[in-house]
Each structure stands twice: as structure tokens, then as C-alpha cells.
């Protein structure tokens, strides 16, 4: 087993563990700490896949902005941020549904070749060129949607609504 495969297995184990831990721990602030580790781990997977620009973007947007935004959400909606969540059960039906989804997806994946394939590396400058030429419309659409979303978010939280 090569070093990259060992690195992938370790990163996958950490991603699964932190994802599950984030949803099962009792205190909401601990959830946000776990999800921050999850985002950093996903960023490491991007670096492993030779996509450094996406890795940095994941660190900046998810591990940075989204985590802080969620922390603000927790701080603004409760009096003591370390107060515990009421116990919610595991829920047999959702657990079964998630398991069936997982088994279905893995069975579909089983048809693909199992051997290790080379990972293609692209220069970040090529990616930026593609983003502003071939995928320019998508980037423009993202900008428009973001503008609308920010306007909507301000409308939702503004003071003095009827």
C-alpha cells in the first residue's frame, strides 16, 4: 500500500468520525468544533487530489467563514452558549434510510475499476483561466445569486418588521 493510499484512509476515517461526532455530541459549541475539523480534513483531501486552489478555498470559505457564521448563529440564539441540547434519539427509520442510501451508492460504485489510477494535476492558473472564460456564465450566476441571497438575508433579519 502506497503512502498516498495510507494518507487517504486516515483522512477518510477522520472525516467520517468528525462528521458523525458533530451530529451526535450534546453541546452545540462542541458540534461546531468538530465540524471545523471536518472542513479542514476535506481540505486536506483536496490537496491529496492535486487541487490546491480548492483546498485553500475550502479552508477560507468553510473552515473560516462558515464556521464563524455558525458560531454567531449559536451565540445569537441562546442565552448561555454552553447550554446542553435536549436529547434527541437516533431515530430508527432515518438511520435505516441512510444505511439503505449508503449500501445502494456503494453497490453502484462497485462496478468501477478497483485498481489505483493516476491523479491528474492541473496548474491553478489554468483553472482560473477556465473560470473566467468557459465557466464565466456560472461565476456570473453565482455572483447574482449571492447578491440576491444577501439582500434576502438582510430582509429576513431586519428590525421593525410588521
Amino acid at each position, binding site marked *: 500500500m502506497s503512502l*498516498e493510499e495510507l494518507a*487517504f484512509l486516515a483522512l477518510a476515517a477522520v472525516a467520517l468520525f468528525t462528521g458523525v461526532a458533530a451530529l451526535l455530541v450534546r453541546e452545540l459549541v462542541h458540534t461546531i468544533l468538530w*465540524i471545523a475539523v471536518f472542513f479542514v480534513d476535506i481540505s486536506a483531501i483536496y490537496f491529496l487530489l492535486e487541487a490546491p486552489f480548492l483546498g485553500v478555498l475550502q479552508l477560507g470559505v*468553510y473552515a473560516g467563514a462558515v464556521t464563524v457564521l455558525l458560531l454567531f448563529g449559536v451565540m445569537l440564539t441562546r442565552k448561555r452558549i454552553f447550554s446542553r441540547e435536549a436529547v434527541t434519539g437516533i*431515530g430508527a427509520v432515518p438511520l435505516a*434510510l*441512510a444505511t439503505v442510501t449508503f449500501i445502494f451508492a456503494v453497490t453502484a460504485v462497485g462496478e468501477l475499476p478497483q485498481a489505483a489510477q493516476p491523479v491528474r494535476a492541473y496548474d491553478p492558473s489554468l*483553472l482560473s483561466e477556465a473560470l473566467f472564460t468557459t465557466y464565466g456564465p456560472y461565476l456570473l450566476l453565482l455572483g447574482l445569486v449571492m447578491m440576491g441571497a444577501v439582500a434576502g438575508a438582510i430582509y*429576513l433579519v431586519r428590525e421593525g418588521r410588521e
Partner: protein
Amino acid sequence: MTALPLVGFLALSSALFAVGLFGILTRRNFILVLIAIEIAMNAAILNFVYFGAFSGGTGGLSGQAIAVVLIGFAATEVAVGLAIVLALNRLKGTINVAQANDLKL
């Protein structure tokens, strides 16, 4: 040159999507539901990057470009989601999704 099996990556993102789905269906706190959506969305974005990294030609660049756009959309979604959380908290005094049932018949 890095060589990795594609199947392992796909199994990882299926598992992460299943974890996210489970969280969306069982958690009662709105912020936890948002976090579960983020986990599922990260699993989906990872898929684009895998298929890009393992495909020939300029396929990898399409995968990465779409992933960049999707990360932006996910961040937008969190911003709107937290605005809804704050509005719900002001309206109801709680962010339990089970109590946000005004549209129920």
C-alpha cells in the same frame, strides 16, 4: 505521480452523504440541520473533484471549476439559513424545527 483508487473516494462520499441525510432527518435543532446539509453538500462537491481528477483531457478543469461555484453556493445557503434561524428565533423564541409548523394543515 499520485495514484489512488477512485472507488475508495466514492465510498467515502457516499458514507458522508448518508451521515448528512441521517442528520437532516433526525436532528431537531435548526443549526444542526444546517450543519448536516453542509456535510451532505461537501460529499457532493467532493464527487465533482474526484471525477475531474481521474478523467482525461480537460475534464479535471470542469470538475474543479464546478466545485468552486458550488462552494460559493453552499456558503450563500448557510448565510440565508442562518438568517432564517435568527428570524425563527425572534418569531418563536426557539430554533426547534418541530415547533416551526405553522404551514401544517
